[in-house]
């Protein structure tokens, strides 16, 4: 039983974290909302004035907005499909007895620890470069025409890079979940004559549903904010071919110095992320009770 004294003490211990996080959440967000209602360009100081929802109107009618929204969804969905399907396959594979399992695991997990700017640069220059890249060398070796990946399929190339970074995360989580699968149940099903495919569909997949949901939700949060990979490889181009919402807001506020417009875009991004967050929070909240 907690005494009155320990309650007071616990409140004191809690407050720095709570106050800081509260300020961190409310102050910048309040400022963003406020800026989003102003005409506010850093290149024209002193001309700030209240314009209501004008910035939102300009943001939604910006010719880059729809491509950016579509690109964002394509990027998130593309990476999710690759990492979840690949992750389940890899997790099932790594769950089997393998010689040198520890080392294989290390090899598979490694990309997750590579900083985004490094992985983007390595893929862009050393692998995907149409002249000096390794893929071009392999294509020439096979008598094919090398592909200029970032000119011809910029978004797909970025999806590949980001998927490479997140596949380890999905694999690791799904593998962890897989290892808690009841082995005896599996053996019993096998003895009852269920083949590997039926066992996978009826035992493995249902067992992994929860972990897959967690992977999808957490990755979505991070994928909505993919930034360095785009900055380093394509800078959002050619045209708007690889501009995402995050990158569009970055361009508007940091390159065009249009604080009002960028802030309106920021708020749109916050709303989008919140839709995902609500689902994620429910999942984790449920687990907290269990």
């Amino acid at each position, binding site marked *: 039983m907690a005494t009155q004294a320990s309650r007071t003490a616990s409140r004191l211990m*809690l407050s720095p974290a709570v106050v800081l996080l509260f300020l961190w959440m409310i102050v*910048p967000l309040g400022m963003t909302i406020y800026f989003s209602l102003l005409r506010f360009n850093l290149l024209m100081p002193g001309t700030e004035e209240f314009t209501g929802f004008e910035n939102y109107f300009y943001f939604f009618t910006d010719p880059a907005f729809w491509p950016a929204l579509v690109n964002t969804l394509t990027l998130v969905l593309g990476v999710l499909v690759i990492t979840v399907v690949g992750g389940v396959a890899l997790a099932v*594979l790594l769950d089997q007895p393998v010689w040198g399992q520890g080392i294989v695991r290390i*090899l598979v997990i490694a990309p997750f*620890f590579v*900083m985004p700017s490094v992985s*983007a640069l390595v893929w862009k220059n050393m692998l995907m470069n149409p002249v*000096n890249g390794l893929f071009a060398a392999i294509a020439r070796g096979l008598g094919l025409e090398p592909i200029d990946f970032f000119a011809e399929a910029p978004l797909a190339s970025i999806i590949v890079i980001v998927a490479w970074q997140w596949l380890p995360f999905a694999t690791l*989580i799904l593998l962890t979940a897989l290892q808690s699968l009841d082995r005896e149940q599996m053996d019993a099903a096998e003895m009852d004559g269920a083949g590997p495919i039926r066992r996978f569909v009826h035992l493995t997949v249902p067992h992994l549903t929860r972990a897959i949901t967690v992977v999808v939700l957490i990755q979505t949060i991070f994928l909505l904010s993919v930034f360095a990979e785009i900055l380093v490889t394509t800078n959002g181009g050619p045209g708007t071919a690889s501009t995402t919402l995050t990158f569009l807001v970055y361009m508007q506020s940091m390159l065009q110095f249009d604080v009002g417009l960028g802030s309106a875009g920021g708020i749109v991004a916050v709303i989008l992320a919140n839709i995902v967050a609500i689902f994620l929070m429910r999942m984790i909240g449920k687990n907290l009770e269990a």
Partner: protein
Amino acid sequence: MARHVSNSRKAVVTALAWGIGLLIFFPILWTILTSFKTEGEAINSHPSFLFFDWTLENYHTVNERSDYLGHFWNSVVIAVGSTLVGLLIAIPAAWSMAFVPGKRTKDLLMWMLSTKMMPAVGVLVPIYLLARDTGLLDTKLGLVIVLTLVNLPIIVWMLYTYFKEIPGEILEAARMDGASLGSEILYVLTPMAVPGIASTLLLNVILAWNESFWTLNLTAANSAPLTAFIASYSSPEGLFYAKLSAASTMAIAPILILGWFSQKQLVRGLTFGAVK
């Protein structure tokens, strides 16, 4: 329980697993190999895998010309600094939520998590302007502050899930024996909590080391950590593959090694305890 699997099947699975593992690891391996090549060899149209003249020249050049160590030091200060400050704030908070839970503890935890869901770009402008106006733009202190706040929810959550596993009765026993709150924390809780705190520290250093939104947007020359340093290589004049590889290898090596030790904590920390 040992599973009985025929050796031939194990051999096939092993070959497949190693093949895929090496394929996934290949870009990293290729970077490391290229870092030991000469620039000419690095862009050879018939790339050689192992049979080239190994050289350490790129490492020398990168260190001399671009102040690699300076950026490395910035990364260390920012990643370790923000993690330590975060721990300092989070340990008392997680302790109190785990051992003196109130009616609203769960709501509080969920609310902390929700702050993590906010996309960085939503607050980019105000944070940039605040940093500029307070003179914290392009300083290590500014980034330590921002990354502390960015990762604080994860730190609190990780610590909370670890502290939850410490049996509360031990603390009550100590309290009955007349231990004060201070000595309770110091002599009873700390030894049991050290492994959890260490894991939290490790994972957060990794996250902060690789953080690439704020580090790229809030730094210029002075306090740029390795993320920004490497990104500067994307400009055309900096395109020397072997040197790029050497710089990349040095930037990822420390965290790759730390990361391999933290596989288990990674799952737990990044899923907020939802998958263990």
